[in-house]
């Protein structure tokens, strides 16, 4: 593991908007097969960090390498599946069936004028099967429940056969039972399918058993290699503020 090229290699990353520091001097590595959770207070820069990893924002300072390549030279974006924060808030009027959405996962791999081939069909079928949404295939996305939509969005990301899945709190507006199933699904993707997972969440207590490492982001990054220990670590409590206690209680309730 030590000598392997990390999927994400972030060095000394800083980001400011109009003179206001959002992130400063972040360095971290994410390796193949890991399950990493990112937590931190709202406005602490979690989403900004993810957006920089995906090339949606350009860092003020620092360097990002993806699969060993500088981000501006990296072309194989289909290796990275992204499920954004707004995933479960689909515009109800958007004309899309579940199949329409999952098919989008194949778009970047096709060449112009190419029709959907068997490989595409298989990948889409496979992704829907894994997310258990095959029976919803022809349903309009706007009519689904929050939990179902969430699975559709992940199926779309999986259809490109990614090596890493990045999820930015995709569970707002999803009921408790669906959330529990969802966490089980993620753990399964990581263990069985060997997909690396980076998960921004507030529910750290619930997934503490699944995750390998925990990054706490509040302008700076604190990396805890043993998440269960991290839950009681004072350092994190200080960084995370009052939320740390909430997380702690959360853990005991469940």
């Amino acid at each position, binding site marked *: 593991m030590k000598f392997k090229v990390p999927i994400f290699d972030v060095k000394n990353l800083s980001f400011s908007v109009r003179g206001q520091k959002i992130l400063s001097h972040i360095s971290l590595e994410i390796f193949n097969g890991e399950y990493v959770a990112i937590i931190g207070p709202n406005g602490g820069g979690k989403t900004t960090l993810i957006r920089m990893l995906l090339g949606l924002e350009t860092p003020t300072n620092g360097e990002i390498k993806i699969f060993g390549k500088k981000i501006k030279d990296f072309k194989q*974006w289909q290796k990275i599946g*992204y499920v954004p924060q707004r995933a479960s808030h689909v515009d109800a009027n958007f004309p899309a069936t579940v199949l329409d959405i999952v098919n989008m996962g194949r778009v970047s791999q096709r060449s112009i004028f190419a029709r959907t081939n068997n490989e595409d069909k298989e990948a889409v079928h496979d992704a829907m099967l894994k997310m258990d949404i095959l029976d919803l295939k022809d349903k309009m996305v706007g009519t689904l429940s929050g939990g179902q939509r969430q699975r559709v969005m992940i199926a779309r990301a999986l259809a490109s056969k990614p090596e890493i899945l990045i999820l930015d709190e995709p569970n707002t507006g999803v009921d408790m039972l669906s959330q529990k199933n969802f966490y089980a699904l993620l753990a399964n993707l990581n263990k069985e399918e060997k997909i690396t997972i980076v998960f921004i969440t507030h529910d750290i207590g619930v997934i503490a058993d699944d995750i390998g490492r925990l990054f706490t982001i509040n302008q700076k990054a604190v990396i805890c290699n043993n998440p269960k220990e991290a839950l009681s670590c004072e350092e994190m409590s200080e960084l995370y503020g009052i939320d740390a206690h909430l997380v702690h209680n959360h853990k005991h309730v469940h």
Partner: protein
Amino acid sequence: MLEIFDYDFMQRAFLAGMLIAILASVSGTFVVLKRYSMISETLAHSALVGVAVGLVAGFNPLWMAVVVAIASAWLIEYLRSSFSLYSDAILAILLSGSLAIAVIIVSLGGAFNNSLFSYLFGSILAVSEEDIITILVFGTIALGLLLAFSKELYFIAYDEEVAQTSGVKVKFLNFLLVTVVAIIIALSIRVVGSLLIGALMVIPTVSALQYRVGFLNTTFISLVFALLSVLSGMTLSFYFSLPSGATIVLCVLVIFVVSLVINKK
């Protein structure tokens, strides 16, 4: 009943109208889904600048309209991506700015006449064989590009950022879409008129959306609605001596209201 087809100009008008219905509705689907509806109005007014230059300088107004509409579309995309301006404000500024320039050019060149009027409101009498060929050539290119990139454009309309992170060339395709839309609008103003083309591009899709079906079916329904309104609008305009563009728009409005009512939740 079919005496309407005895006239050469009506045959040309129907042919041009149907071509435009296809082009406007297919491109309109992407425009509406991208929340870009107002761009059609702005580009239609920019196309008028081309028409004005054409009329005054003696070039083919349709060709000039295509050129100026494309330039305007690129300017919109450039302003949108390079400055912190609200998209709808950019559209409003360019809309009135273009109209002002067009009016000044026409006024200085002394071309305020029926010819300009026909470009504002459309005229079925005005469609020449040369126009049909221009529409056919440019229209085929425009439609070809839309179909070639339809999956990417649909993905971008759904979620621009997710499309970008999956490796879709979002910036290039946004430019491509506005270019194609500019071409289609410039081609359409002869028949429907620059003040009314926006309706033909937007309303069929918005009506089709009321049926809450998937993407392909929505595009298909929108196409049928556009064809239906052009054909019925032109027929009514022939028999009742009504202006063609306005009659077509009223027909598509009827379709919209009916779609809205029968699909009421």
